[in-house]
């Protein structure tokens, strides 16, 4: 077993109206900070996971994303896995 640090980034699917992103984009512009476009606001979910291998960890996180962490109707997700140094046991 090894411990992994997991980051799941969930973002509104491109092309779907994201009013939060639009509002942030407008606020950036009103600050005079120009050039930002296609702003989307999502969420970052971080956790630790014990798994036998990186492949197993990836498969389990994928299932977590599909069943709960993201809603495939409107959201995309992206997973980053990092094994904790010296965590293999």
């Amino acid at each position, binding site marked *: 077993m090894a411990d992994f640090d997991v980051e799941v980034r969930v973002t509104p699917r491109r092309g779907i109206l994201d009013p939060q992103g639009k509002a942030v984009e407008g606020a950036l512009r009103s600050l005079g900070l120009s050039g930002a476009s296609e702003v989307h606001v999502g969420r970052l979910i971080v956790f630790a996971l014990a798994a036998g291998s990186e492949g197993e960890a990836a498969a389990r996180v994928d299932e977590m994303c599909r069943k709960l962490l993201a809603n495939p*109707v409107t959201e995309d997700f992206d997973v980053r896995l990092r094994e904790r140094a010296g965590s293999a046991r």
Partner: protein
Amino acid sequence: MKFGVVTFPGSNCDYDCYKAVREQLGAEAVFLWHKDHDLQGVDAVFLPGGFSYGDYLRAGAIASLSPIMREVTAFAEAGGPVAGICNGFQILCEAGLLPGQLIRNRGLKFRSRPVHLLVERADTLFTREYTIGDVLRIPIAHGEGCYFADPDVLDELQANGQIVFRYCDEDGLVSPASNPNGSARNIAGVVNAAGNVLGMMPHPERAVEELLGSTDGLGFFRSIADHLAAV
């Protein structure tokens, strides 16, 4: 005839539903606790409005996984009537009992006001007391009420006649101006393909007495009661 109203942590329209059933239908109503696995032999289930689990993660996402939802899903799959109002609609979508999802209102604002609804189906068990083309005045109160589904899913809903209510103006005109939250095709309420699971963002339980400003929601409760009486 017995109605069940599920209470999740954060539900706040459960008592309104309970009261509508008891006082307007004169029928029996019971609260169903989210942690229970027992539907207490009810003939119909309401998932009420509110902010279950504080809308954490996504509105309705956590509630859709609560213990009672396993029973509600089995009840729905066996043909039992299930109606989700507001947060209840969000929960039904998250549970996969209805297609699509309710996302943040287009204008970002929480909308709390009466709206007009066009009745597009008067042959469902939830709307048999209405007539196609009726315009109802019923309140909404939500921040995440923008109905979204992929275009092919919307086409399928349309083709199957699963769109039950649309936002309209007081004359029944469906237009972008009468859409309070940016919902696709002005959708305010849908049923599943089998016709026994309905979700709607407006609150019929808040329109059942003159004192509340409208009685247009009565037909919704009476329709279900008529259906149960006829079964």
